[in-house]
């Protein structure tokens, strides 16, 4: 019952989102940037680096903003479906799956397809993998924001702040941390700290696949050694997954008791 309801709702959300202008424009812009960046820069590593920057800049902010707005706009629709004896957990997860898959498909078409066609390499695959994970993560955070905040305006504000925090502020704090403790061996703590920011995690994952990794010096070497190992890969994958699962679980928990 839970399963079929979920499938039905996801199907119709996707039908809606595939006609959504923002999703179409997002896909189109990603595709134009990806194709131009990959075909213009002569060497593949450089093209991928630019694509990485595009991913890190656009994916978190667009995912979280779009998802937050979409969730808030679906409020009445959610109420209507809940009144049709859909369970709350099913409903909220269906909303998440719908939006997350639409955004992921947009990323796959916009960035994934061009980079596989024009520049197939392990690094490209890692980039796509990171981009998808960032989409899933920031959509999950958007869901949590939707569940926590009653007011749409406040929700959007929170979404912007969250995106800024992870793309910019966190790194600023990290830099001041590195600055203050530069006398100490901080490379291992750094490895731990990075896990608290999915954007950094995704960035380093891709950088390690590219030859610019050697520029990251000792920390980079340490990261490479760790993330290259089986335990490291499992750890990284685990971190990324937790970044999806924790906000999702929290959302479901909170949504079950939420007054609509």
């Amino acid at each position, binding site marked *: 019952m839970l399963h079929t309801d979920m499938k039905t709702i996801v199907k119709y959300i996707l039908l809606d989102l595939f006609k959504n202008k923002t999703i179409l424009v997002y896909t189109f812009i990603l595709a134009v940037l990806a194709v131009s960046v990959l075909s213009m820069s002569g*060497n593949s590593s*450089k093209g991928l*680096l630019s694509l*990485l*920057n595009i991913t*890190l*800049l656009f994916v978190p902010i667009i995912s979280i903003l779009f998802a937050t707005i979409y969730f808030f706009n679906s409020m009445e629709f959610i109420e209507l479906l809940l009144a049709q004896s859909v369970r709350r957990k099913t409903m909220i997860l269906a909303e998440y799956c719908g939006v997350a898959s639409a955004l992921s498909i947009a990323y796959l078409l916009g960035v994934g397809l061009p980079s596989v066609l024009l520049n197939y390499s392990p690094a490209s695959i890692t980039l796509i993998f990171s981009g998808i994970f960032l989409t899933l993560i920031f959509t999950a955070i958007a869901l949590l924001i939707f569940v926590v905040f009653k007011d749409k305006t406040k929700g959007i504000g929170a979404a912007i702040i969250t995106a800024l925090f992870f*793309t*910019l502020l966190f*790194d*600023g704090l*990290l*830099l001041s941390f*590195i*600055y203050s403790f*530069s006398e100490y061996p*901080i*490379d291992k703590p*750094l490895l731990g700290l*990075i896990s608290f920011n999915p*954007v*950094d995690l995704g*960035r*380093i994952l891709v*950088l390690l696949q590219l*030859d*610019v990794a*050697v*520029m*990251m*010096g*000792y*920390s*980079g*070497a340490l*990261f490479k050694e760790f993330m290259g190992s089986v335990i490291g890969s499992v750890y990284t994958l685990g971190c990324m997954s937790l970044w999806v699962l924790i906000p999702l679980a929290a959302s479901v928990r909170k949504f079950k008791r939420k007054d609509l």
Partner: protein
Amino acid sequence: MKRTFGQIAFLFAALLIAAECGASIIKVKPAPNAIHNAIAKARTGDTVVIMKGTYKEHEITVRKRLVLTGNSFPVIDGENKYQLFLIQCDSVIIRGLQIQNVGKASMTDMAGIKVINAKGVIVDNNKFINNTFGVYLQNAAFCSVSNNIIHSDFKDEINGGNGIHAWRSDHLSISGNIISGQRDGIYFEFVTESKIISNRSFGNARYGLHFMFSHNDTYTKNTFNDNGAGVAVMYSHGVNMYDNEFIHNWGDASYGLLLKEITDSRITRNRFIKNTIGLHMEGTTRVDVRQNLFQDNGWAARVQASCSGSNFIQNNFIGNSFDVATNGTMMLNNFDSNYWDKYDGYDLNKNNVGDVPYYPVSVYSVVTEKIPSAMILYHSLLTDIMDQVEKVLPTIIPDKLRDDHPLMKKIKL
């Protein structure tokens, strides 16, 4: 003056060979101690032709002026235990041999061909395979090592030896050799007035070229690529490096070219491509860096604050992650009239010179020079923004480190 003396010496040697053209030719076929016996039998000026085959002989000492020639690359095998040729006489010529499996010893440097206290020795067109040291020159002068192929499969920096090793020598000519898989491709220590021309040194465990305390030497048209740490030039003066290529020396601590305590030298028309650090300068004085190409390096040039009086003029900087990095706030070197692809100034009077200065050091590179761990933020949005802000409000970067006449177009090199 010294150079002309060298040429005369060569001529003199050549005349001697010509004069004794009638000297006899001794053919050697594989047999126990065949080469030893032949050399013992030979008279000064004779030619020993070593026929095709494998010779397990070692410690072959040459104390007469002989020509040793291989016929279809006979193999002289050291069985991973012994050293092979020891040349202790002037004007010996060795060519056409395949010298392999020289052994290792902790007390002596074992080499395929070791030249000790000799002048005018010529080592050419030989193959050196899996030797600790290939050619070893000690107190040698006016020697020529050319067109040899030197290769080793040892991947071990500590136990390996150098391809061409020269110590306390002068007026050497090292040309056209292809060296790979050694510890250092070419190693010079206390070697002066010498030339290194058109060699290719690649895939060596440490340096493609490594020289110290070697003054007034010239290096041209060599290619150094994919070496563990690139090329290191240290504690020398009067070094001329022209038309060399430093390519893809890529690793945690790899340099295209590392200069340390170098004075009054010239780095001209070289190509530094895809190295972690293209050109690293430390404690250099009056080094002229002119008309070089720096392309796709991590750091094109890293100029430590201990450098002074050096000029960077008319170089092309293209596609480097960082153009220039420095560790201090002082800059006593001069950057002028270079082409920087990151320059986004304008040229109103169309004289091909940008109207506003270019600052080749980015804030982020200043930060990472101080705290290398900060490289972990490489390619993050934060660092991009830091650099953009710094462009508008310069505060951290050394003010003197700027190019007042950045060129608008690439220099044709």
